[in-house]
């Protein structure tokens, strides 16, 4: 009795995070050092930024599987244009236009053509990858041109903390303000809870949906710039990696219900903290990558099951626009 109400998923995950953190600090040498803590935060910054975009989409009862493709391919194309000698502003304008077009196309297909988001974004991910890889760039990895601002960005630190941590913090705060205090942010929750009711009461449900996919595409581009900055290149093989999976993992494990209308930035932060600490501890323990994936997938499964138990969706809800 009382279990579902008093122990929300968010609290369970927060407790587990603290427990793992405490255990790792005691048991693992070097875990609780300032350098390692900064490394943890840095490692989850890009993931966390992507998860913020995914969270806004999921709260609105959608999903965006094209984020990693947009992140990698937009920046790869941008770097390629710079390497080919194009001017900074022209390249930036072109790539931003491309990102906007993909976001708009995703949003339009989901909102107006009413194609399930999971298929639209799966297809657009392949499309973006295929188009850019075959037509616009010459090799899998595109380096950041020497002397470019992105190259400096990667090495930049403020008070010993890498710059992407600040970007993550700023975006998290901005997303928090948007979801919590703006009218449009609240619309996301209403539309996620019951799209038909939101439409009837006079909310612009479909335009808002398009806006969310545009936002997630832009956030993916920002995450891509930070990735390229820290690695000095953009490797497009990341599209076929488990990164997309990690984004969903962070969002869902923090307690953002896949049935929509639930969760917020706090859930992303908790999810990111758990995943960051876990990955770092596993790396220190030298657990092979394959086993790491096994552990992550087990955690995602458990999170989705717990989500299903805590946020049951009845038949009627499930019938209206599932992901």
């Amino acid at each position, binding site marked *: 009795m009382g279990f579902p109400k008093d122990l929300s998923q968010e609290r369970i995950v927060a407790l587990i995070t603290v427990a793992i953190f405490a255990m790792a600090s005691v048991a693992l040498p070097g875990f609780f050092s300032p350098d390692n803590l900064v490394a943890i935060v840095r490692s989850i910054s890009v993931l966390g930024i992507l998860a913020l975009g995914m969270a806004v989409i999921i709260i609105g009862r959608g999903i965006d599987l094209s984020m990693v493709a947009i992140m990698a391919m937009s920046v790869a194309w941008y770097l390629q244009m710079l390497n080919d000698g194009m001017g900074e502003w022209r390249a930036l304008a072109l790539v931003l236009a491309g990102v906007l077009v993909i976001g708009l196309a995703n949003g339009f297909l989901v909102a107006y053509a009413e194609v399930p988001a999971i298929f639209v974004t799966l297809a657009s991910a392949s499309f973006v990858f295929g188009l850019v890889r075959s037509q616009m760039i010459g090799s899998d990895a595109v380096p950041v041109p020497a002397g470019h601002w992105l190259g400096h960005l990667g090495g930049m630190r403020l008070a010993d903390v890498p710059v992407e941590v600040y970007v993550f913090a700023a975006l998290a705060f901005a997303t928090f303000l948007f979801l919590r205090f*703006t009218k449009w942010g609240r619309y996301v929750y209403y539309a996620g809870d019951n799209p038909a009711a939101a439409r009837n009461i006079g909310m612009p449900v479909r335009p808002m949906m398009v806006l969310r996919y545009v936002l997630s595409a832009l956030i993916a581009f920002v995450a891509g710039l930070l990735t390229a900055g820290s690695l000095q290149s953009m490797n497009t093989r990341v599209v076929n990696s488990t990164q997309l999976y990690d984004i969903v993992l962070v969002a869902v494990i923090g307690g953002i219900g896949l049935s929509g209308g639930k969760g917020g930035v706090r859930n992303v932060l908790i999810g990111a903290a758990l995943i960051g600490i876990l990955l770092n501890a596993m790396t220190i323990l030298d657990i092979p990558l394959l086993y790491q994936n096994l552990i992550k997938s087990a955690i995602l499964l458990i999170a989705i099951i717990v989500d299903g138990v805590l946020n049951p969706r009845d038949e009627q809800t499930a019938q209206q626009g599932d992901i």
Partner: protein
Amino acid sequence: MDPIIRMEKITKAYRGVPAVRDADFDLMPGEVHALLGENGAGKSTLTKMMAGAVAPTSGRMLFKGRETVFASPSQALDAGVAMVFQETSLVPSMTVAQNLYLGAEKPLNRLRGIYISAQQFLQSLNFPVDPAAMVETLGAAKKQMVEIARAVHHNAAVIIFDEPTATLTPEEKRHFFALIRRLKARGVSIVFISHALEEALAISDRITILRDGEIVASGPTSGFTRDSIIAAMVGRALSGQLYRERTEAGVRPAGRKILSVQDLSQGAMVRNTSFSIFEGQITGVFGLIGSGRTETFKVVAGITKRDFLRGGSVVLDGRPVRYIVPRTAVKDGIVYVTEDRKAEGFFETMSIAENLYSGLLASGHNRAWLVSRAEMAGLAADWSRRLNIRAINDNARVVELSGGNQQKVVIGKGLIQKPRLVIFDEPTRGVDVGAIAEIHELINRLADEGLAVVVISSYLPEVMNLSDRILVCRQGRIVEEFSPAEATETRIMYAAVH
């Protein structure tokens, strides 16, 4: 004769709050037993315990004289207790015969074979249903017949109906009652949950009334009257106020014409319909299910689009309008209060305050970009008081409220938008008697304040009691208009059927 089901001191509590408390209930073989009560009185919980869908917290149940605990609905079904739910549990993409034999197929399942035996079985029940028809193509009444046939096919000794007549037309209801009598003649015991008191009085042998989880009255139907049932349900006598006859003097005159609809068409459901709506009075719209009344007003409120070609015209305040989304209609002051509040009315995971606030956020009067928690709390307190919304606490989620309070929340979030034309679609469906009186009072008050009010209802006493003029919808168009003075139940019904 021994009862087939006997429940002794049965209690079901959710998180310590009893939904049913110390109930003693018995059901005789071959008896039709009506279970009445306001929403949230515990009728559904009580029957779900009989059918194994809910486990009792304490107390015991005897089935055919032996103490029994059903672990699941399928176990209850095997033992002979079947429950027919309001939302049917049939598989829409399968045929009637396949549904009948669902879960009971032989290892080698010959379709032709089951069609033949299904045909014979349906004929033996006198059900005019084609066994080869897809379930999704059937109407509500025929779907229910299939459900019932499935229950009988499982040799159910007890069939529980949860609000079986809510979605049926009068014609279908007559068929349904005939069926109940036939089942009874076969010795089947029937439990019948209903909001329609006349039906319970007409069809049942015994009536049990629940209030707040307790059985407050039980006895042979002959010992009850409409008034005594209502008094027992609400614990006070108010039936005199509800559905009283309309007096000539109380009829409000038509104000300014706010809406005029000419030759409106939309799909197959709305065909060349024309009518006008006036301020300061209640226009009642009566029609059977499938007559296109809801569809007509959904076009008016911008929820669906009228036909692009030959769609007719809608004129609001002398200005032609063609809404593509409800948003523009809301800005023009048209609010539609849905008949299906769960699917398209309220936000179920959210609190009462957030639900009410949605109306203000989305209204045309709200220019603010930021939301304010203080404003939301103030709004919620104000409107909860105005509409007398009762909840366990302020943070209660709407899904946890009773039907009447949910409906008040849905109405409230519409009224917050300061509409000039309010369309209530079945405003008291699935609402308890006490809340019906309050909602009717509210609707009357809105008209007195000068709003144009439309009330769509398939319940004749409601239409006749509320309306200052009555429109009758049939086959996609408004076919007749009555003043309250000339309207009688027979005349309205005569216009509504074809």
